[in-house]
C-alpha cells in the first residue's frame, strides 16, 4: 500500500513502453497514481484535486510527453511543484526588537504536543542566549502544569504557574513575573481545544488579547488526517496564528497535512518536532517534506543522522580501513552504527523501502557469528577454513551456511573497499569522479530510481 510514487509511476509507464509517444490518457493515469499517493499521505482531497490539475497542465508539455523517461520527468515536476507549495525555509521567529519580554503563544488540539513543543522552544531559545520563561496556561487538563514544570526543570527554564485556575490571569501575571525576574521571552502554553468548542476558542482569544503575543504558533500533529483543513482554517479565523510547528515527525507519518496547512491558510511551517528529547525541534525543510509526502525517502536526513552518530573515531577507522583493508571488526562496528542510527528498519523507512524487505534479526545473527570468531580470524578472515567455520557455527548457534553467508558479505565489502582505495591512489581520476557524482545526484533525486534503472525490481 505504501509504495513510493516513483514505483507506482514506473509501473504505470512500464506498460506504455515502446509506445513511442504518450497520450493525454496516459498522463491521466499517471495523475491518478499521484492522486492516490497524496491521499495516502493525508493531503486534503480538495488540495489534491487542485494540485493534480496544476501538475497535469505542466506534464502535458511536449518535453514530458516526448521524453524517454516520462516517469522520472513527471516525478520531478510533482516534486518541484510540491516543494514550491510548501514554501521556503522560514524558521525565524519574528519578535519585536524593542519589547521586553517578547511573547510566544502556542495553540492546538488536545494531544498535538503543545506542552512538549513549549519546552523544546524554550530550550532552543535558551541556547540562543535568551532567558525564557514558560507560562503554564493549560488550566484544564489535569496535571498539565506539573508536566510543564517537570520539563522546565529538565532544561533549566523557570515555569510560572500562578493559581492554575484562570488561564487569562496566569498569562497576564506571567508577563509581570518575567519583567520582575529579568526573563526576556515568555512562552505561553495553552490548553488543547477543539476548533468547534466555542468557550475554549473564546479563552484562546482572551489570552491573545491579554498578552499580545509577538508570535502565535499552532502545533499540528503530523499524523492528522483530512480534518486538518477544518482545524487550521478555524484556528486561523478565530485566533490567527503566524506559523506552524509540525509535531511527531519522528514517526512514519507522511505528514501530508503540512501541504494542506500551506494551501488553506498560507501560513509557513516553522519547525519540525522530531522526538521526546528537548533538542529535537528542528528547522523545517520543504524539499525533504515534499519527498516524504511522496514516500520517496529522506536521503539528506539519513546523511545528517549518520553525521550525528559518526564521531572522530569513526573517521580514523575509515582511514585505517582504506589503508589496511576491511576487517570483521569493522563489519561489526558498522552493524552497531546502524543500530545507533535507529535500526535498519528506520533507515529503510527513510529510504522509502518497504519495511518487510529488511530483517532486523539478520543483524543479530551476523553479530553473533562475528562474536564467535577469534581475534586473529576477525583481523584476517581469509584464514577461516572449514574447521574454523564449523567451530564458529557451533559457537554462535547458527549453521555453517550462515557463517559462509557472513564471510561472503565481508568479501564483497572488502572488494568495494579495495575499489575505493584504488580510486584514491590513482588520484582523482576524472572519469571515476564523474561516475560518482552522477550516482550521488541520482541518489539525491531518489534512491529507488537506482533500482529501477537496472530494469529489475531490486528492493534491498
Amino acid at each position, binding site marked *: 500500500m505504501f509504495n513510493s510514487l516513483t514505483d507506482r509511476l514506473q509501473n504505470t509507464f512500464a506498460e506504455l513502453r515502446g509506445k513511442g509517444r504518450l497520450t493525454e490518457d496516459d498522463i491521466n493515469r499517471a495523475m491518478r497514481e499521484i*492522486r492516490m499517493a497524496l491521499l*495516502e499521505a493525508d493531503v486534503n482531497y480538495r488540495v489534491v484535486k487542485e494540485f493534480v490539475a496544476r501538475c497535469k497542465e505542466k506534464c502535458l508539455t511536449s518535453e514530458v510527453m516526448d521524453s524517454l523517461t516520462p516517469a522520472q520527468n513527471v516525478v520531478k515536476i510533482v516534486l518541484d511543484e510540491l516543494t514550491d507549495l510548501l514554501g521556503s525555509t522560514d524558521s525565524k521567529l519574528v519578535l519585536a526588537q524593542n519589547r521586553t519580554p517578547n511573547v510566544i503563544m502556542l495553540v492546538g488540539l488536545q494531544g498535538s504536543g503543545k506542552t512538549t513543543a513549549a519546552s523544546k522552544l524554550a530550550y532552543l531559545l535558551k541556547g540562543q542566549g535568551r532567558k525564557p520563561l514558560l507560562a503554564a496556561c493549560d488550566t484544564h487538563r489535569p496535571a498539565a502544569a506539573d508536566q510543564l514544570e517537570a520539563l522546565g526543570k529538565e532544561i533549566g527554564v523557570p515555569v510560572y504557574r500562578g493559581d492554575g485556575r484562570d488561564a487569562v490571569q496566569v498569562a497576564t501575571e506571567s508577563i509581570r513575573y518575567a519583567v520582575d525576574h529579568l526573563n526576556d521571552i515568555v512562552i505561553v502554553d495553552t490548553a488543547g481545544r477543539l476548533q468547534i468548542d466555542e468557550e475554549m476558542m473564546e479563552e484562546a482569544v482572551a489570552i491573545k488579547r491579554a498578552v499580545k503575543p509577538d508570535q502565535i504558533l499552532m502545533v499540528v500533529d503530523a499524523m492528522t488526517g483530512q480534518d486538518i483543513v477544518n482545524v487550521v482554517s478555524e484556528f486561523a479565523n478565530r485566533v490567527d496564528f503566524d506559523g506552524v510547528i509540525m509535531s*511527531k515527525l519522528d514517526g512514519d507519518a507522511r505528514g501530508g497535512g503540512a501541504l494542506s496547512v500551506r494551501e488553506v491558510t498560507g501560513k509557513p511551517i516553522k519547525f519540525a518536532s522530531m522526538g521526546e528529547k528537548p533538542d529535537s525541534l528542528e528547522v523545517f525543510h520543504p524539499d525533504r517534506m515534499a519527498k516524504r509526502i511522496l514516500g520517496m525517502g529522506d536521503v539528506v536526513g539519513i546523511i545528517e543522522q549518520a553525521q550525528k552518530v559518526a564521531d572522530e573515531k569513526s573517521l580514523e577507522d575509515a582511514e585505517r580501513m582504506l589503508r589496511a583493508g576491511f576487517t570483521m571488526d569493522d563489519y561489526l562496528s558498522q552493524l552497531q552504527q546502524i543500530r545507533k542510527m535507529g535500526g535498519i528498519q528506520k533507515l529503510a523507512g527513510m529510504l522509502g523501502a518497504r519495511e518487510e524487505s529488511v530483517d532486523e534479526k539478520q543483524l543479530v545473527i551476523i553479530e553473533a557469528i562475528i562474536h564467535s570468531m577469534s581475534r586473529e580470524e576477525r583481523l584476517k578472515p581469509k584464514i577461516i577454513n572449514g574447521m574454523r567455520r564449523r567451530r564458529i557455527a557451533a559457537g554462535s548457534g547458527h549453521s555453517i551456511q550462515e557463517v559462509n553467508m557472513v564471510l561472503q558479505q565481508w568479501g564483497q565489502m572488502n572488494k568495494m573497499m579495495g575499489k575505493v582505495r584504488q580510486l584514491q591512489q590513482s588520484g582523482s581520476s576524472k572519469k571515476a569522479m564523474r561516475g560518482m557524482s552522477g550516482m550521488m545526484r541520482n541518489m539525491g533525486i531518489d534512491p529507488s530510481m537506482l533500482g529501477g534503472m537496472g530494469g529489475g525490481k531490486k528492493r534491498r
Partner: protein
Amino acid sequence: MGFMDSLKKGLSRSREAISEIFYMGGEVDEDFWEDLEDTLVMGDMGGEVASRVTDDLREQAARENITRAPQLREALAKRLAAEFVPAKGDPFTDLPSCVLFVGINGAGKTTTVGKLAGKAHGDGVPCLIGGADTFRAAAIEQLQVWGKRASVDVVTRERGADPASVCYDVIDEAERRGARLVLIDTAGRLHTSADLMRELAKVVNVTRKRCASMPVSVVLVIDATTGQNGLNQAKEFNQALDLDGLIVTKLDGTAKGGIALAISHQLGLPIFRIGVGETIDDLQSFDALEFCRALVGEGM
C-alpha cells in the same frame, strides 16, 4: 444531549457532505461516483477503501438498476458497517477483567482510563487504576487527578520506575483487594521506535503472565483525527502486542474517524468504545450500523 445526537453532531460535516451528494440532482452519474469517493476519502477512510466501497456500490446500483441517489444511502451505510469487525465480548463489562491501554503520544489514553474508571465506580464495580506511564512528565499526577475524580485508587510508582514492575504491583494489589476491573495506563510511544515497543511488549507479557486470576486485554487508543498513518500504528502495535481491540477518541470534533474502519477491517479488531465528548458518559459502546448511518445521514 444524547449519545446519538452528539455523535451526529460530531459527524455532521461528513454527513452534510454525503447528504449533499445524495440530494443534489439525485441522479446517479459519473460525477456522483467521483464525489462519493472524495467524501469517503475526506472521512479518512483511505483512498483504497474508498474506491473499493464505491466500486462495490456502483456494481450494486447497476445490478439493481438504482438510478436515484437517495436509494443508495442505506445500502452505503450497510456496506460501510460490514467493513467493521463485530466485538465478541466487552472487556469493560465481562468481569473480572484487566485492560492495558496503549497508543501513540496524545491519543487520549490517560483520559480514557479516567473516564472508564469513573463509569465503573458509578456502576458499583470495584475498580483499580494502574499508572504504568512512568516516562512522561506529570503523567502520574494527571492519572491521580482522574482517580480522585472517579473515586478510584491509583497504584503507581515514581517517575522513571520500570513500567513492567508497576504492572506487577497493580495486579498484586488488585488480587489483594478483589478488584473486578483493572485499568492500566501506559506511556504513549510512536510505533516506529523499536526500543520503546519492545519495552511495551515486556510490560504486556509480564502482565499477561502475572495475571492468572482474570483475562488480560490490550486496547489500542486511537485519535479520530488520525489520518492514514493510523493503519501503520495499529499494524505495529498489533504485531508487537497482539491487540484485542480499539477505542477511538475525540470523535466530538469535525474529524470522522474513518481510519477506524480501515483498521478494524484490515486487522480484524473490534471497536470497544468511542469517545464523543468531554464527560464520563460520552465514552460509549460502538454500534457499527448506527455509526455508519450517522455518517451517511440516515434518518435526518
